[in-house]
């Protein structure tokens, strides 16, 4: 890994692990958010790249996380002694303020890959750790169209922060702590990506974007506002209505 970053606006470059520590720690913090002590995942190996983004840096990290043993049978359906996850994170660091833009995790089957590592884990050429072109396109260009231009726009995160600020003002949001606020901002940014994807795939005239639910994760929204019984429970039989003959 080269230790001296090239000039702003150049392509991403490999990092030495000490430089990854901060963004990796923030990503782990966000991943463990809301978990009680003893149930939090631990960080394994990390590698990543950084790309200058205006006044800050955009880190693309690939990391392994180790989940603790699952002791509570009511929580885990399949008792697993330990589970290693392979995650990719995008963390924006601007003047020391971090924002998680993206998180994707999936289990790495320790039995097949042996010793908890994917083959070629440390070889830079390993396909597991390259940002695949569609990865790159899907995340950066669909949500952040301005990112297509190099260098990144000066005010990208300022723009996101100002949109989030409008949201907080419009819907009169309050958060208990700075940490909560930064978590909600990262959820908000993630939701902007989701909204834009839904927009791109809608065949009608609907417009999707910021709503009063934009700082909720999909899981929170689904749990709080939706009604799983509708698809699960049969409900009572009702007789069919008489067809309408004359309107």
């Amino acid at each position, binding site marked *: 890994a080269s230790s001296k970053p090239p000039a702003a606006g150049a392509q991403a470059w490999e990092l030495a692990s000490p430089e990854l520590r901060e963004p990796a720690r923030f990503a782990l913090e966000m991943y463990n958010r809301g978990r009680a002590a003893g149930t939090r995942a631990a960080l394994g190996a990390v590698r990543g790249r950084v790309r200058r983004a205006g006044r800050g840096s955009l880190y693309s990290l690939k990391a392994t996380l180790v989940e603790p043993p699952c002791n509570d049978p009511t929580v885990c359906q399949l008792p697993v002694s330990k589970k290693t996850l392979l995650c990719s994170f995008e963390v924006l660091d601007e003047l020391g303020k971090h924002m998680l833009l993206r998180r994707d995790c999936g289990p790495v089957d320790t039995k097949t890959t042996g010793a908890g590592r994917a083959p070629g884990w440390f070889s830079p050429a390993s396909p597991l750790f390259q940002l695949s072109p569609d990865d790159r396109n899907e995340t950066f260009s669909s949500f952040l169209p301005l990112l297509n231009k190099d260098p990144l726009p000066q005010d990208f995160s300022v723009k996101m922060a100002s949109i989030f600020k409008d949201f907080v003002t419009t*819907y009169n949001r309050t958060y208990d702590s700075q940490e909560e606020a930064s978590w909600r901002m990262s959820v908000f940014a993630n*939701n902007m990506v*989701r*909204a834009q994807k*839904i927009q791109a*795939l*809608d*065949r*009608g*005239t*609907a*417009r*999707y*974007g*910021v*709503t*009063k*639910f*934009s700082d*909720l994760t*999909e899981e929170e*929204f*689904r749990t*709080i*506002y*939706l*009604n*799983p*019984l*509708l*698809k699960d*429970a049969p*409900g*009572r*039989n*009702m*007789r*069919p*209505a*008489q*067809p*309408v003959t*004359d*309107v």
Partner: protein
Amino acid sequence: PPPQWDWRNKGAVTNVKDQGMCGSCWAFSVTGNVEGQWFLKRGTLLSLSEQELLDCDKTDKACLGGLPSNAYSAIRTLGGLETEDDYSYRGRLQTCSFSAEKAKVYINDSVELSKNEQKLAAWLAKNGPVSIAINAFGMQFYRHGISHPLRPLCSPWLIDHAVLLVGYGNRSAIPFWAIKNSWGTDWGEEGYYYLHRGSGACGVNIMASSAVIN
């Protein structure tokens, strides 16, 4: 059926309500239907109590969800619905405090409606707003316009939100259903959601029902 219809301008629909942080959409969908039925049969538009259903409909699960078909049955068993004012909404499960003396409306039966959207439109135009349940895909970020998600994204089999059909029509040749939601007026188009009509979008035709008042 007529080319368009809207029960909101015929006095059959109360103001948009807000279920708050509670999965009680099923109760709002049913009260909305019964409000319409009572208006068309008795000529009075009353805003009816969802909290009574949350507390006293023991078959359903209050904020954890419920089914319109169960709710109609509960209304019949209880003996009717109180008004919103008499049994006001709290957004969480409480002890049932229904009193039959205070019930202002009753229902006699409930029916399942056709899955054919043409027939459904005809039934709505003749008989009043319809309780339905849809897949809420995209609704978290919906702002306005006629929603028409790709079918695989909005599967008719993953129904998870109950709402009320109050009308239908066309906007620049795109057929739509006008849907009263229960997320307050600061969501969507003043609380309403517009969904493509005629393609079974998001399962709009899968779980249509109504109370019957003789």
